[in-house]
């Protein structure tokens, strides 16, 4: 696929449709992949990469890129397209300044999980019949089941559908995928409150406030974040105490509620492996249950459940009374 993408990008550069390309760039190691902008065919040939580790959601970069002169080519995976669509709804990206080629995504791998299988010194990974062939410096080749090493966000993929594009690389669009992404939330909901508290204290107290989750999140794209703003009253740039989430993570999840497309980047980038997506999914699950199913970024709908209402909405007390064990 990498070659087809490079070929198509070169065509589009050449015929003047775009003047630069948003993609992923090779690093020192095969799994060391970063989003990057390419200006020439040479650069593309040299550094453009598409492999099992190009998981990064590039939609957020387009906020700044589409404000620049000229037109940029963006390759969007299904989950990236939801984020991009949501940013369009929020008037954050200029659709005219981007040419979107939708690319399929059959799931991205988590390096940590591969390492956990005891495989180190990886030099190459190729796909074969749904499995991954991992080659190491020792010239060994390991066959790994894709599913076993999927990123969390890919394991619980909600959709293979690209919701906004100018063309599709494969000419065909994917479909929504049945998933169990709320199971884990339900599991926590079912815990007794003390256990829930202990669970979250355990998870969140590891936070080192590196801000990776915030910086990667397409919804966290404020001109100035309240946590960086001395006037907001909640400015705080370092972990406040053991139970860091006292403010930061709850507020962050709340600020993106209704806008979060569940792209899963926050958990992917967290160096402390805090399952941050479970906070966002809790809001999504609640909104679905209380206000009807809603998927941010799926349509042009600009009013999401938090900026909408019905006069017969449930009262807040429902939180304390609705069913479920452990409640």
């Amino acid at each position, binding site marked *: 696929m990498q070659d087809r993408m490079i070929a198509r990008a070169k065509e589009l550069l050449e015929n003047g449709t775009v003047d630069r390309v948003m993609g992923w760039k090779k690093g020192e190691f095969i799994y060391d992949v970063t989003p990057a902008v390419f200006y020439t065919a040479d650069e593309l040939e040299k550094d453009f990469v598409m492999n099992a580790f190009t998981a990064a959601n590039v939609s957020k970069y387009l906020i700044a890129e589409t404000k620049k002169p000229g037109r940029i080519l963006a390759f969007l995976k299904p989950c990236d397209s939801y984020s991009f669509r949501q940013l369009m709804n929020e008037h954050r990206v200029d659709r005219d300044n981007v040419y979107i080629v939708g690319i399929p995504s059959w799931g991205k791998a988590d390096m940590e999980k591969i390492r956990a299988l005891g495989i180190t010194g990886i030099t190459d990974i190729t796909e074969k019949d749904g499995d991954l062939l991992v080659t190491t410096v020792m010239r060994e080749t390991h066959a790994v089941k894709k599913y076993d090493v999927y990123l969390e966000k890919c394991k619980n993929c909600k959709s293979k559908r690209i919701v906004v594009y100018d063309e599709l690389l494969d000419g065909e669009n994917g479909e929504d995928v049945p998933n169990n992404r709320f199971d884990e939330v339900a599991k926590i909901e079912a815990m007794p409150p003390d256990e829930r508290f202990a669970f979250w204290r355990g998870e969140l107290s590891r936070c080192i406030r590196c801000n990776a989750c915030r910086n990667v999140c397409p919804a966290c794209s404020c001109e100035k974040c*309240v946590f960086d703003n001395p006037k907001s*009253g909640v400015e705080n740039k370092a972990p406040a105490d053991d139970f860091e989430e006292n*403010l930061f993570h*709850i507020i962050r999840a709340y600020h993106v509620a209704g806008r979060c497309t569940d792209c899963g980047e926050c958990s992917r980038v967290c160096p402390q492996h805090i399952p941050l997506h479970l906070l966002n999914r809790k809001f999504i699950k609640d909104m679905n249950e209380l206000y009807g199913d809603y998927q941010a970024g799926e349509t042009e709908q600009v009013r999401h459940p938090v900026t909408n209402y019905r006069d017969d909405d449930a*009262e*807040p*007390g429902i939180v*304390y009374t609705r069913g479920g064990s452990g409640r």
Partner: protein
Amino acid sequence: MQVRNEPWKPLIVAFCCNWCSYAGADLAGTNRLNYPADVKIIRVPCSCRVNPLFILRAFQRGADGVIVCGCHPGDCHYTSGNYYARRRMTLLFSMLDYLGIEKGRTRVEWVSAAEGQKFAETMNSFVETIVSLGENKRLEDLRCKTE
């Protein structure tokens, strides 16, 4: 950590919308309906002015309970403010519950300007709930305590 000498008294912050609930609180006063002094009211124009940040901030600074009062649904002075507040608070309360914070530390009540009695009763019952839950330890950021 500060050693407390006094017996614990609950600290309760009540956000009241200016048009209905604050007036309801006034009426409770006019009718001399008692409720505990632990309740401290902050006046906001509408329940939709209550940012979840304020509630988290209150807890962080040691509040034991936070109650948000607004006009009855359908009677908002601004037509729809309390409807937004209702969704926001529902989601916030649900999240706090999810994090294992004790149920009942937060509440929303609709109190009209005519419901002085209801205001007093609501505050009495809320204080009772908070007393039964005891001190808010889970959300309090101890470093924020001065003195």
